[in-house]
């Protein structure tokens, strides 16, 4: 019993009081800005949902990863700009594929070795790949990503590793 509890704590990560309070503050401020209603009932519901969100975040192990997340935060806008261009070009490709009468698809599954080191990095890489139309991340396991591509060209593009390199560059000190 005792061992099980220790394992559980490890899984959820140690939450320091300062980070819990910070998350609570951010949630409360954004809730107040978003709702704009200051009646007691609405405020009470807001407070309840903030506390519930913090509890769920704790359960999901948010406090294990949030420091790695803060480190990449300031590089994200530049990365998003590159990702946006990528999304636009691949969207046009997929739209053309779908609308062409012969439906020239060649579905392929590839395995990509993630150059990212942290869990947060893996998530950013996997989600970016899913976000650009034509490629979907099916599985992430021990630093390997299983990716389904709509065409062989898309698969080759992924294996060139541009996305991989850029996501890894996010994590650098």
């Amino acid at each position, binding site marked *: 019993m005792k061992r099980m509890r220790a394992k559980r704590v490890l899984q959820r990560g140690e939450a320091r009081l300062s980070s819990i309070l910070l998350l609570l503050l951010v949630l409360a401020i954004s809730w107040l800005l978003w709702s704009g209603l200051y009646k007691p009932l609405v405020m009470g519901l807001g407070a309840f949902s903030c506390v519930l969100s913090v509890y769920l975040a704790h359960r999901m192990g948010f406090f294990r990863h949030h420091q790695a997340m803060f480190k990449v935060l300031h590089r994200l806008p530049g990365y998003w700009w590159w990702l946006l261009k990528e999304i636009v070009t691949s969207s046009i490709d997929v739209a053309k594929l779908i609308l062409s009468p012969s439906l020239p698809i060649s*579905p392929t599954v590839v395995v990509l070795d993630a150059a990212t080191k942290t869990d947060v990095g893996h998530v950013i890489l996997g989600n970016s790949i*899913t*976000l650009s139309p034509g490629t979907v991340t099916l599985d992430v396991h021990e630093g390997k990503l299983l990716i389904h591509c709509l065409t062989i060209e898309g698969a080759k593009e992924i294996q060139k590793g541009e996305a991989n390199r850029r996501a890894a560059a996010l994590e650098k000190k």
Partner: protein
Amino acid sequence: MIDLVLDILSWILLVLGGMCVLIGGIGGLRLPNFYTRIHAASLTDTMGTILIFVGMMLQAGLSLAALKLFAIMLFLLLTGPTATYALANAALLSGLKPDAGSASDDPKEKESQ
């Protein structure tokens, strides 16, 4: 003058976004199996979302509403791929083979092939 330009630009973006959603729907019908259909849905999910929300932000102008729209777009773009991953991963874990190529996974069509 500048209002007119912004209005035209926002309508172009909204119409393009609507087209992306439509093409995603057509793709969902035309593509042969589960894993390829996800790609059509992701066209609706990302490009449709971006175009429609930027179009609406241009309509809202510089206001709190535009900021809220931007935040909603960001949340959709962050949660969308996570949901797609959950869907695709659930299919993979339950044994649907991803290397079927462009074969249909409809049991009726499989029999006739």
